[in-house]
């Protein structure tokens, strides 16, 4: 799969690379909201400054310009005078423009997936850059509006995976699911049992598995229509 790299544990290093990997892992696991302002800046500079320890630079910039946001808004010449190269400065310009985009409304409404046509239309866009072999789940509310489109959680057994899916569905307050396999290598008949298990696992929680689709060459096929669910 294109997203997995050979497992090298960079978090064991004590050098800057180990530190950067640890901070990225921390943000992945617990989010960025608990980071101090200087840590936000330190990590943004990972993108603009290769290899070096960026913490003293971050603290120095905030000390000089007064605050995190004042660093983001500082004049280009001043940031260059502080020793930043242009790529680092570009990274520091991103939060301001991202702030503006986040403050504006969303042009695209969350889609309603109440019938086959709506679903196929949605999948056209959803399959962009899809990872072959993945099972993805569409979590829907009680009006079949899409709440989230996510890869199925990793798990060692189908039971554990269904548990993780249920937990996620409950967290999203989803009342229905639609699954789809992205260009699977397995034959549809071999995927049938997993789909049925998921169907039954969701029922006690009043979560309906509408269907599981197989995508690949040509239009998606419905496991429900194929009698496989």
């Amino acid at each position, binding site marked *: 799969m294109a997203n997995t790299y050979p497992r090298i544990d960079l978090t064991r290093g004590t050098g800057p690379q180990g530190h950067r990997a640890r901070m990225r892992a921390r943000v992945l696991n617990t989010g960025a909201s608990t*980071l101090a302002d200087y840590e936000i800046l330190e990590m943004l500079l990972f*993108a603009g400054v290769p290899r070096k320890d960026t913490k003293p630079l971050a603290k120095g910039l905030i000390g000089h310009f007064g605050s995190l946001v004042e660093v*983001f808004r500082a004049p*280009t010449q001043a940031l260059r005078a502080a020793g930043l190269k242009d790529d680092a400065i570009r990274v520091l310009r*991103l939060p301001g423009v991202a702030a503006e985009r986040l403050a504006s409304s*969303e042009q*695209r409404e969350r889609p309603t997936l109440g019938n086959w046509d709506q679903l196929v239309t949605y999948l056209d866009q959803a399959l962009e850059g899809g990872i072959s072999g993945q099972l993805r789940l569409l979590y829907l509310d009680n009006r079949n509006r899409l709440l989230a489109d996510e890869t199925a959680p990793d798990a060692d057994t189908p039971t554990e995976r269904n548990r993780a899916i249920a937990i996620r569905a409950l967290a999203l307050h989803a009342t229905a699911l639609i699954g789809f396999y992205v260009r699977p290598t397995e034959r549809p008949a071999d995927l049938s049992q997993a789909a049925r298990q998921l169907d039954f696992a969701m029922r006690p929680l009043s979560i309906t598995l509408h269907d599981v689709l197989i995508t690949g060459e040509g239009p998606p096929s419905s496991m429900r229509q194929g009698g496989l669910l």
Partner: protein
Amino acid sequence: MNSETSGFSDAMVGLSSGDLRQIAAMTESSPGLEPPLALLTGRGRHLDDATLLHLMTVLFTGREAGSGELSHTLLARFGSLGAVLSASNRELESVNDMGTHMVPMIRLLQEAALRYNRARLPPEDVLDSEQKLLDYLTARLARENIEQFRILFLNDKNSLIADEAQARGTVNHTPVYPREVARRAVEIGASALVLVHNHPSGDPTPSEADIQMTMQVQAALDVVGVTIADHFIIGNGRHTSFRRNNLL
């Protein structure tokens, strides 16, 4: 550093003569060079989402190769830069060729952007500019797929002293306990609160439950001498102000 332009406007007044010469030269040379310069000099707000996503991807992955494709996929999948920044880790991880840096850096940029929006609130009186307040609340809540409740705690000058997420919603309403709100307000020493929650449907019309809950919270706060400055419901590009609608 003086910031008269305390908004999203082009605040980068400090362009060097070298930058100005480069900008002048841009009119003749390839337009492909302009976006990096625009971003560099703080004029990135003139760039569209596709261009910004491409620049962001190059910076976060550290390479040009593949960045065009990846940023194109992100835009096709999520629809906007704002939506990419608001997508969950699991949603982002379902995109091919993300590598190991993109997801944490996107989370980081989202947080940095939220702090940027919060820093735009007038320090002396956050109610002084409703637009800036709504910009911040929209950035926080407009793209969330679950109903979430948030409280801004203000002192007697309406300065922001704390800003906290509260409960996440159920199918019908968000469980907010008036007693807990009052307790926290007293604990923080707030004089007034701004309540806010989102409607993931995009429609900010208050439900009966929203109105009842607000009245209950107000009654509890009355006992301890704290007021509700306003209650906002954030939809998609629309919002409701309880105060403006005489619901407070």
